[in-house]
């Protein structure tokens, strides 16, 4: 019946749906239910970081004021970055996750 588990029982859990400590959202990987992912086109990118400002999941990695990568562990694939990208012809395009994974496999081969 009851699965064997290390999770705390009701007597030892913090009271009232409280999670102790801050920054716990970091532990929640929101990138695993994405259906589309943003793909960066470096030759078009002007590094304005509009995508970084708009990303609701802080999933744009930057260094020295420049775009570096998407953090796919947290990117939900909402597409706001691609929509807001001000570059003519867009420096970010949305690709279906299925397609992207297929390409990943081809690259690995």
């Amino acid at each position, binding site marked *: 019946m009851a699965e064997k*588990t290390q*999770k*705390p*029982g*009701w007597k030892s*859990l*913090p*009271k*009232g*749906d*409280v*999670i*102790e*400590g*801050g*920054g*716990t959202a970091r532990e929640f990987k929101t990138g695993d239910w994405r259906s589309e992912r943003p793909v960066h086109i470096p030759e078009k990118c002007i590094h304005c970081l509009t995508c970084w400002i708009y990303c609701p999941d802080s999933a744009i990695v930057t260094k020295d004021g420049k775009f570096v990568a998407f953090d796919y562990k947290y990117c939900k694939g909402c597409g706001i970055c691609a929509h807001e990208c001000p570059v003519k012809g867009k420096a970010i395009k949305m690709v279906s996750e299925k397609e992207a994974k297929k390409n990943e496999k081809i690259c690995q081969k």
Partner: protein
Amino acid sequence: MSKINVVARTGNEAMAEAMRQINPDVVAAYPITPATEIVQIFASYVSDGLVDTEFVPVESEHSAMSACIGSSAAGGRTMTGTSSQGLALMAEILYVASGLRLPIVLAEVNRALSSPINIHCDHSDTMMVRDAGWIQIFSENAQEAYDNMVQAVKIAETAALPTMVTTDGFIISHGMERIEIFEDKDVKDFVGPKKLGQYLLNLEKPITLGALDLQDYYFEHRRQLAEAMIDSKNIILDVAKTFKDKFGRAYGLFESYKLDDADRAIVVMGSTAGTAKVVADGLRAKGIKAGVLKLRVFRPFPKAEVAEALKNIKAVAVMDRSDTISGHEGPLALEVKAALFDSNIKKEVPDYIFGLGGREVRLEDIESVYKDLGDIIDGKSKDRVTYLGVRE
């Protein structure tokens, strides 16, 4: 013992007076008849500078309780007031308050629920949220409303459970009575500073509150809530004892009025208990051993204690000021019967659903209930449920 001031107050004024003396950090409220005055009077205390409270006038009761949750979660002592449809609109958020274990205190004036629209007393609203995880304390009169409000803050914060104190719409809320109020400083001493457990504005100990809680944790949190409600019974009694030591008036989970040698008794909540006591006194003058069990605390329900108090009484009736519309008894009768059943006490317990929508309950109505109990003692069976005072 505290110095006492004798004043004339309505139930609403008495509750507002208690709130002034408690001086909470935040009151967020929306007006609704017959509870409007409580927060209206309190708002004037705020504008007159008599309290330090942040008053948040919101656009609905749903928002009122939501604001109360924000305030209480942040660490503030928080109160509000409502009635009927207002409590119904709050219902969703009442569950959030108890789930987060926030000690919000709500002054609730019992009023019928629509439809048909009606502004007068019955207990349908409070009974509708009886399983919301709130402590529920009923008052017989304005004095008890005041005393219960003063105690509620301490109860809620010790139990880490939200608590509602109820009065009966218009009968108590608008009825002017002689009541005894305490000195401001004595109330302040009694309630003490707010006990802060975990709260959002504690920068030393950050917490996440109200996270998604699916199959693997929700059940444990609900079990904790059930345990808190079980434990709150002793907290309510402890607070009542401290209250008696300081202010002199005794409170329990219920009041046993002339029950010790009674052969017949009525179980009832709220203002009707006062009427029932008058009838019991009248019957006693004629040599009939009548008693009243006035339930004060409906949640947590004092199951074993109620059964113990009723076990030697030959005939017991319950009077319910609301209906479950279930084809059988009202909510109070269901609880009382379950209590008796689990204590192996077999009794015929007729239920009288009365006073819906403010229908007057007269001395003769209650006399008729005692008369039915006399018939049961004489071996005659009675209807399981009677709609008392309804026109056929």
